[in-house]
């Protein structure tokens, strides 16, 4: 089953995929989706949120907890959480969501050979 990020609202219970590879560098995360070879960089705030997405709490609850922890306005945190959750869903990093297909010419398909080497000289 794959969902649409349009359906995500404050009642949504997000769960990060556990079959991605993650590396933390200087409070930021780089997430590798091995299905596509794509890397996703999460800034320090998104990194904290990512670590909370364990499938136990809905976004409204997470917003209250994070607002309390960081002394921030709950409504603003909820809005930011919704935006981030939809982005993570579009990127296929949440359980139940597949990554958006790239626009033609926007990205290499996952099985395309790298176009790095200078092509052979023309005839």
């Amino acid at each position, binding site marked *: 089953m794959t969902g649409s990020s349009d359906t995500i609202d404050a009642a949504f219970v997000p769960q990060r995929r556990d079959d991605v*590879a993650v*590396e933390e*560098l*200087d409070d*930021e*995360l*780089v997430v*590798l989706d*091995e299905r596509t*070879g794509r*890397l*996703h*960089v*999460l800034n320090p705030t998104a990194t904290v949120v990512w670590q909370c997405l364990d499938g136990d709490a809905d976004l409204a609850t997470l917003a209250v907890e994070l607002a309390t922890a960081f002394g921030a306005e709950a409504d603003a945190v909820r809005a930011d959480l919704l935006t981030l959750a939809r982005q993570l869903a579009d990127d296929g990093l949440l359980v139940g969501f597949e990554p958006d297909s790239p626009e033609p010419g926007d990205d290499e398909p*996952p*099985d395309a050979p*790298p176009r*790095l*080497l*200078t*092509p*052979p*000289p*023309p*005839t």
Partner: protein
Amino acid sequence: MSAVAATATELGPYAGLGHRFGVRCDHPGVAAYLEAAFATLADPAADSPPGWYALSGIDDRLDLTYDGEVLAEDASARRAVGMLTWHVNRCAIDSATADHVVVHAAALARDGHVLMLPAAMEAGKTTLAAGLIDRGWAYLSDEAAALTRDGRRVRAYPKPLSVDPGSQHLLDDWAPPVPADAPSSLRAGQWQVPATSRAGGRVVADGPLGGIVLPRYEQGAETRLTPLARAVTVARVATCVFAWQGPQLRWRFEALASAVRRSRCAELVVGDLDAACATIERWWEEGM
């Protein structure tokens, strides 16, 4: 297709990463040109190489094969040499991807550490490498930097620097000597220049990674270097990694992150070669 004559000159053995090869060439002028160009790939201690390129022909018409596979037929010397260097590059990179993270990058060394310059084609890697060699940096590659699986060291692929026609006006004193009996087409097109042909030019076999700078040439732009977050650097460098796909992806990702974690990282807009080299050197010295 003509066979290589019995009087062919044997060049090599050479080694480019794991690609070990020799060249047989029955055209004296082309053989002399290649012997000079491939000097930094020479592997004199090696046994007879497992693969042989054969260049055969007269005047400016040559055939090129690799272990019997035809790579070029009745081609100009310029095209045949271009195809030979392209094939060597491809095989060298393929030979290393199983146990290295091979990055499309120039690499140079100073103070015992390696600077990696990852970039796509036409970004100015070779030009920057040439400029830094002339400032005393040791050479590892202008094409491929092979990171070890633990991300700690960079292994050299010291091919001749391939200077494209569009950059030759910046490096006019890098024009390689062409033997008098070499075909005239070798005087045009891409130059193949070994780093050791430059005064003070030297090659190092490997070294620990110390810094990563992602260069981008912008005509007329002001040269500027901007520090880059390590996480962003991982994502940017990954776009320059050969074979970034398949079941080997995870360890390559982990090795790349490990390498970036212990490196200083920046991006560089190059508008002027001298300014770019000076900027890199200031940034490098600040980190030492």
